[in-house]
């Protein structure tokens, strides 16, 4: 009941005309980012951060979150129409979405994806409403050792996502932590790693680093290739037939459940729920041979799971301050720039924002449905924008974003430096999300570690003698071990029995 009252208060905030307007702008921009192949949601969200600088924190955050879930749907459009996923979680949609388009059923595929996304996103938001408050209340009991352990869980979640790239991911995390250490010591106030450069006394700002790592490096990488051909497409009716509805409704229900619960589990990327949903749909189908040839369940299930996941993945971010994906790490940085620290205190100190944001998910889902059903033809036409214009625009936004935070050309140089570093890391195929997360959570981790050790007189056992921190650190170990062993486990499960010489 308490959550319902708070949510109703939040709904009043979310329905203010200016907030609806900025959520609408966010959905438009997010869908646009998702539509454009080559610009991932993390990079797209990062380059759009400057737009929120002049806004109040509430509409600014609502807009950024709308960009996030808008991008989840936008990726679907290119998957179905041109067999090019706008982002990783839309890969599965290509399997049956594009064959549907080839059969002249592109409109139906886009229609069911939009409806599934709406249903999944809306139901998952109800789940967010139910789970968020108890989790935030629990987190309020955390002291420095628990906070440190929680941050370690955050690090291992992002590092664990990288699978086979475990060592590079840990290296990137350390690199991000070192970057976070530049500037004044948060406990004693002494400058560190500044080397008498005045601009470094305040440390590296998050925005220029993100602009460089995600924006500039993305352009440098894409620019290597000769100019790509623009893509032209045709659309059919958006409304599924009666038989198609019947087939898709079960897939939507299953996709919602899968996506919501997977969003709550640390370390699961948005790709996994879509794949699991696809496998489940194929397993429960009466004619599984239809899959890969235009089965509507193969679009409805994964698309629903994707949107349900993207809503429930906000729970760890909002209640514990732990982003579960690179895009959410960027959004967390944007929260901090706007003077808002995600975590349990958000629900206590800024209930208007916390509940307004949760309520805005509903508003955003309605906006996305309106945007994506009648305007899908317009989105498809965005694919016709030549890439030369797009890259120039991305760089322009990167410059504005990097400069504007502190009105500093030094930050512009920082963005370029990290653009080059990001380009090198991409070429090496090393993950960059751990750098961003470490840059954001590094100061919190250091302060919590040092305060905990001061509390215990230098005794590290404080982290395992307190039950919550012990459980959290144990979970971190499990996540890391899982990431390290998953490749061996997969190989072991799929290994062929040795052929005996006699049989041969």
């Amino acid at each position: 009941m308490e959550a319902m009252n708070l949510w109703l208060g939040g709904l009043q905030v979310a329905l203010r005309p200016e907030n609806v307007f900025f959520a609408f702008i966010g959905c438009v921009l997010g869908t646009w980012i998702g539509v454009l192949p080559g610009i991932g949601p993390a990079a797209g969200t990062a380059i759009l951060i400057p737009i929120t600088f002049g806004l109040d924190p509430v509409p600014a955050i609502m807009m950024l979150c709308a960009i996030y879930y808008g991008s989840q749907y936008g990726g679907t459009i290119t998957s179905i129409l041109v067999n090019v996923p706008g982002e990783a979680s839309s890969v599965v949609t290509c399997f049956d979405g594009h064959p549907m388009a080839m059969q002249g059923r592109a409109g139906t595929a886009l229609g069911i994806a939009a409806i599934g996304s709406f249903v999944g996103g809306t139901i998952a938001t109800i789940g967010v409403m139910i789970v968020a408050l108890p989790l935030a209340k629990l987190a309020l009991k955390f002291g420095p050792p628990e906070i440190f352990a929680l941050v370690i869980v955050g690090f291992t979640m992002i590092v664990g996502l990288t699978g086979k790239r475990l060592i590079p991911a840990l290296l990137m995390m350390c690199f991000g932590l070192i970057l976070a250490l530049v500037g004044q010591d948060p406990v004693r106030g002494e400058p560190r790693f500044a080397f008498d450069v005045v601009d470094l006394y305040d440390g590296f700002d998050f925005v220029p680093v993100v602009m460089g790592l995600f924006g500039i490096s993305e352009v440098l990488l894409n620019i290597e290739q000769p100019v790509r051909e623009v893509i032209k497409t045709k659309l059919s009716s958006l409304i599924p037939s009666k038989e198609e509805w019947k087939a898709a409704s079960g897939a939507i229900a299953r996709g919602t459940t899968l996506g919501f619960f997977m969003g709550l589990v640390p370390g699961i990327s948005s790709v996994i729920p879509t794949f699991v949903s696809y496998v489940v749909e194929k397993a429960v189908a009466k004619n599984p041979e239809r899959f890969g040839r235009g089965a509507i369940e193969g679009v409805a299930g994964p698309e629903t799971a994707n949107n349900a996941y993207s809503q429930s993945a906000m729970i760890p971010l909002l209640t514990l301050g732990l982003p579960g994906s690179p895009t959410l790490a960027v959004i967390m940085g944007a929260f901090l720039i706007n003077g808002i620290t995600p975590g349990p205190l958000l629900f206590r100190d800024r209930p208007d924002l916390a509940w307004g944001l949760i309520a805005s998910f509903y508003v955003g889902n309605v906006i996305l449905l309106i945007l994506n059903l009648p305007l899908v033809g317009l989105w498809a036409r965005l694919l016709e924008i030549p890439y030369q214009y797009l890259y120039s625009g991305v760089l322009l936004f990167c410059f504005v974003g990097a400069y504007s935070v502190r009105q500093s050309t030094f930050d512009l140089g920082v963005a370029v430096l990290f653009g080059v570093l990001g380009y090198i890391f991409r070429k090496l195929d090393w993950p960059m999300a751990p750098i961003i997360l470490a840059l954001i959570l590094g100061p919190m981790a250091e302060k919590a570690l040092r305060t905990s050790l001061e509390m215990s007189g230098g005794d590290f056992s404080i982290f395992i003698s307190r039950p919550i921190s012990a459980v959290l650190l144990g979970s971190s170990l499990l996540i890391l071990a899982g990431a390290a062993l998953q490749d061996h486990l997969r190989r072991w499960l799929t290994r062929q029995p040795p052929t005996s010489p006699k049989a041969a």
Partner: protein
Amino acid sequence: MATGAHMNKAWKVAGAAFLAFSVFVVAEALRYGFLDEYGPGPGFFAVLVGILMGIMSLALVIKVTFIGGPEEKSGSVFPRGEEASRVLLVLGGIIGVVFLLQPLGFRVTMFVFLIYMLVSLGVRNVWIIATMSLGGSFGTYHVFYHWLKMPLPIGYLLGF
């Protein structure tokens, strides 16, 4: 030479670079003080992170050398020839912006940069170049400076 070997070499070089960086971090952090009278000092966390980074770098180099590196990918790790020229051309333009933004101001710098970018990337239609560069420079300035109240450099030279 196999492409996987290129990638292995690149990983080894990167691992060695991070190893050197970690040694520098630890040495520098020790100067700030590992422990002081209150407990962990300003260099405490940096030393721990530096040591972890060193161990990971070493593990990476050893793994790539003795166990095996990343799976093979098509093409070389870094671009060559025409591809490299395109990257360097864009990078040159980006670096130019860093140095010109303050003296020339946002509008003039971006106007010049966008023309440079579009021409470098093969756009030849004068009207498109003019519209994009004017809209991207003066238009963007108007939106951010006047509507979103975000200060952007005006420029020492032209003063407008």
